[in-house]
Every structure is written in structure tokens, then in C-alpha cells.
């Protein structure tokens, strides 16, 4: 059964729809097609692993899905909103309200505490109050960081920093969370723990997720695996375990 079929069966709108999306860098003889006619649909409660070798177009796909890059052609719908031709300001708004990011390099603000890193998301949206603090505390508690609220990133372990980053990505209650190799800097055991946490948090909220990973041992945590090679989506496999 395809993802679209699953969504239809579930009666929910997809969190992400990409139709015939192409991204070309450069012009003329120097043109490089990073993504070619990519079509994919991800349900509102679906976790998808995106795998492929370096330079295959994973990052480009993730960037377009997250409103970081505009496609050269094709249609992109995130959380029900067509962002194919959105202006930079509109894309900023989409990233602020609809998408969550967990970056490969964790990228927490080094001079903010764990709690403040989460509250930053709401501050960028122009809201900061008791509700924001309560949500940040609840998220950090769920992530096992209730005793680390006031620690700076430099005072946290690699795994704890990754968990803070996950909390930050969920802070704006996004329709779609994008993970850029979230376990690449972690050992296998910690990687498994983080993936379990991601699955628990994402599934528990009914949020969709795309996870870029090089580690095939981590794909079983996802509902399906999408492979990409030379900018083309190759296959769409349902997970057999997880």
C-alpha cells in the first residue's frame, strides 16, 4: 500500500506533498540537477527514513520540504499550505510555525540554557509567557531533562544536547519535523535510544517526520524508507520492523 493510499485510508491530510519537484543549481553547461522530478507524500503521523549516498540529493529534498530552499519547478505542500512559490518572508513564517528541525550538528544556541533554547522558538514567534514555559518544561521532562533545564549546552552530554534539539524542534507543535542525521555523532547504543525517543515523541504527537540517515540500522524505527540516488527517488519501502 502506498503512503497516499494509507493517508486516504486514515482520512488525514498529508503533512508533506511533493509533486514532480526539481531543483537545479547553476545555469547552462554548469547546471547541476540536485533533485529530479521528486514525488512523495508523507502522512500526518508518518515517519520516513531518507537514505542515500553523499551528494544524492537528500539535503536538497529536506531543505525544500522545510522551506529552506525554493524548488526550480514542481509543487510543494507543507501542512496543507502550498509553498512552491512562497516569498522568503512566507518561507520564514512556514519554518517558524509549521516545521521543526533537528540539525546534524545539533546547533543549540551556546549561551542559552536548555529551557531557553526551547523558549527561543516561541520568542521568534512573538510569544513568551507561562504557557510557553510550561510547554518547554513538559517537553524537557518527557525527554528526561527535567534536571537539566538551566544547564548550558556546554554542560550537557552529546545525547542530552540532541534531546534538547528534539525538544526545540517540537516546541512549535509542527506538522512536519525534519531530522538531519540525528544519530551520526552518537554511538550505536545512544543512537538507538535517540531514535526510540524520536519515534515516541513524533508518534505520540501525531507529527510527521523525515529522517536523513546513513545508518541502515536506524531505519527500522521508521514506517518506511525512501532511497534517493543522483537526485531521483528510487524506492519506497514499508518497514518490516520497529
Amino acid at each position: 500500500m502506498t503512503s497516499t493510499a494509507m493517508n486516504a485510508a486514515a482520512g488525514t491530510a498529508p503533512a508533506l506533498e511533493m509533486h514532480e519537484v526539481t531543483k537545479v543549481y547553476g545555469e547552462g553547461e554548469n547546471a547541476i540537477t540536485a533533485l529530479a522530478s521528486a514525488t512523495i507524500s508523507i502522512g500526518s503521523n508518518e515517519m520516513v527514513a531518507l537514505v542515500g549516498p553523499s551528494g544524492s540529493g537528500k539535503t536538497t529534498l529536506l531543505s525544500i520540504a522545510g522551506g529552506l530552499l525554493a524548488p526550480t519547478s514542481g509543487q510543494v505542500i507543507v501542512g496543507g499550505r502550498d509553498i512552491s512559490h512562497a516569498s522568503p518572508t512566507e518561507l520564514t513564517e512556514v519554518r517558524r510555525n509549521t516545521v521543526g528541525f533537528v540539525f546534524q550538528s545539533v546547533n543549540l544556541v551556546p549561551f542559552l540554557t536548555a529551557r531557553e533554547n526551547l523558549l527561543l522558538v516561541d520568542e521568534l514567534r512573538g510569544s513568551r509567557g507561562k504557557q510557553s514555559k510550561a510547554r518547554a518544561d513538559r517537553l524537557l521532562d518527557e525527554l528526561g531533562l527535567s534536571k537539566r533545564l538551566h544547564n548550558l549546552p556546554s554542560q550537557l552530554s552529546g545525547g542530552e544536547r540532541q534531546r534538547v534539539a528534539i525538544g526545540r524542534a517540537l516546541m512549535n507543535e509542527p506538522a512536519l519535523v525534519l531530522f538531519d542525521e540525528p544519530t551520526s555523532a552518537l554511538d550505536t547504543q545512544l543512537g538507538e535510544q535517540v531514535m526510540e525517543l524520536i519515534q515516541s515523541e513524533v508518534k505520540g504527537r501525531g507529527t510527521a517526520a523525515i529522517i536523513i540517515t546513513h545508518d541502515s540500522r536506524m531505519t527500522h524505527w521508521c514506517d518506511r524508507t525512501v532511497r534517493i540516488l543522483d537526485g531521483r527517488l528510487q524506492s519506497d519501502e514499508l518497514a518490516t520492523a520497529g
Partner: protein
Amino acid sequence: MRLAWLELRRRPGKFSVAVVTLTVLAALLLFLAGLLDGLFLGSTGALRAQRADVFVYSSTSRDSFLRSTITPDTRAAVEAVQGVDAVGGLSVTLLGAVVPGETELADVAVIGYELQPSGIPRPSGPGQAWADERLKGFGVGQGDTLLVGPAKTPITVVGFVADSNFQLQGGLWVQTDTWRQVQNQNRPDAPSAAGDVQVLLVQASPGQDAALLADRIDASTRVTSSLTKAEAENSLPGTKEQRTTFNSILATTYMVVVVIVALFFALLTLERTPLYGMLKAIGASSRQLFVGVILQAIIIATVAFAIGGGLVAALSAAAPPKLPLQVQASRIFTSYVILAVCAVIGSLLSLRRVSRIDPAQAIGTAQ
């Protein structure tokens, strides 16, 4: 904005170079401005105190007190001009004076006056003077008799007045006859005849325009050169030149502030590029980031100005009385505003760099 504030609070070391540099520049700016004001105020106090609208010089004097002579005939001609309400003579002689118990001569300006200036009582008796407080720094006390000039003309101090100096020399305010005695005894090369004064001060009738009245006086007498009060202050030797020189130095220093802040934030923006990329990726707008940069520039300028101001205040308190350093509240305010504006202009030069940071670089970048 909160992000920018927290960075300043928690990583003050990162901004220390900019704060130290701007502190030195702020102290320099205030010191120079204090000198400029001190020189101007110390030179013009005797004129600023006058309740006069027009200063009438003899036409051959090139607007100099020391070269000007107004005779009784000219005085009568001025009094007859329509719009003239009252006139009074003002004459000055610059000399050294021996202070009782002191070895160093005090620089004094013996000023003969008729119209009562602001803040200075009416002339005391013959041989008596109201002294400017600046002379206290030379050891002058109430009741002291100063021996003025090479002829050692005695003048007794009956009390002190403030901000009444002429050409940075301490004012000794005396009757015109006492001034004439001092002038004739000590400056035999430029004697003053009975009834002569150097400059005639004119109080205009209500509603009269000072500049028009000055023109009318000159047209009527044909032997005078009349200036408004502001023109007279600026006509004092060196005043305009001092102001031009100091203002040029101040303007150059403010430009250095712009360059320093621009360079600092350019380097900081370069260092922050990955952070800004990540912040943009999670929804920060360029405007939000830039407001933070401007806030940091203003806070750095404010802290530097406060420290620099403290340094200049300490220097001012410890400075010898001869140093014409006067830092006024209005000058402190305008200096701070200009410094803050320069800091904002400097930070604005990072605007393009901040706005061009691509949020997509946050993806696919390993630590």
C-alpha cells in the same frame, strides 16, 4: 532582542575589545568637548553675562575690544538712533596681578562696566572689584588687594562672581574710572581719555531686531562697527578658530567610532554565520537578527560612554584650575546621542551580510 541581551550578559568577554576601544574614544570625545566648551565659556563669559543686544565697536577696530575706542560724541550719536533704549560702556585690559602671599602672577582681565550684567552686582567703589571664582585657583580671597600690572595698581576684591572671564583670564569687575586708571597706568601706549570707553553696549527697545538695529547704528554714526551679542562672542580672537579645529577633531573621532563598530560587528557577524543560519532555519527573520545587532551596538556604546564619562569626570576633578575643562550636561547628552547614532550606523554596515546569510546552510553541516 532578548537573545542579543543574553549574549551580552553571558558572554561579556566577546564584547570587551569593542567596549574598551569605544571607552577610550568616548573619553577622548568628552575630554575634547570639555576643552572646547571650557575654552569658549572661559573666553566669552564676560560677554555672555551682558544684558545687551548690540555691541558697538569703532569702525577701525576690526571688532577688537583692545583696538576699539568709543568717544563721547559717538556715544551721543548712538543714543540718538531710533530703537536704542539704553547704552553703557564696557572696557577690558588684560594684565598680570600679584596676589598677596602667592609667588605666581594671576592672569586677570580688568573690566570696566556701566550696565549691570547678569549675575554680577553693580560696580563697587573706586579701586574695588568683583572677582571671578577662577581667581580663587590663584589664591585670591575676599578682601585681598591685588597689585595689577607693571604699575602695581591696587584693586581690592569685595566678593566673587561666576562665569565672568574674558579670554580665559579671571574677570575683575570695576567702575569704568577704575578701569581707566588701570589702563593709563599700565598701558601708556594706549591711553583712554576721560569719557572714552572701548565698546558701547546697547539695549534695544522692546520689539527691535538686534541685527537691524546694529545696521541702523552703523549707518547713522558712520564711524562704528556694530555686532549682535552672538557675533561679538564669536569675534573674540581665536574663538572661531578653536571651535572649527575642535569640531573637526570631534567629527574625525566620531568617524573612527563608526569604523570601529563596523569592523567589530563585521567580524562578529562572520563568526556568527552558522548561528544566524540555524536561527533563520528555525524561523528567525533577518529583521529580528538585525534588531539584536543594533541593540548590542547601542548597549556597547552606552557602557563605553558611561565608563569614559566617569574617567573624564575624575580627570576634571583632578585637573588644575588653569586647564579650561568644562563638561556641561547638554554636551554630555549630545555626545552620547551622537556616539550611539555612530554605533548604530557602524552596525548597519553588517545589515547586508546578515540578510544574505542562507538558512539552508544549517542543513547538511556537521559540527
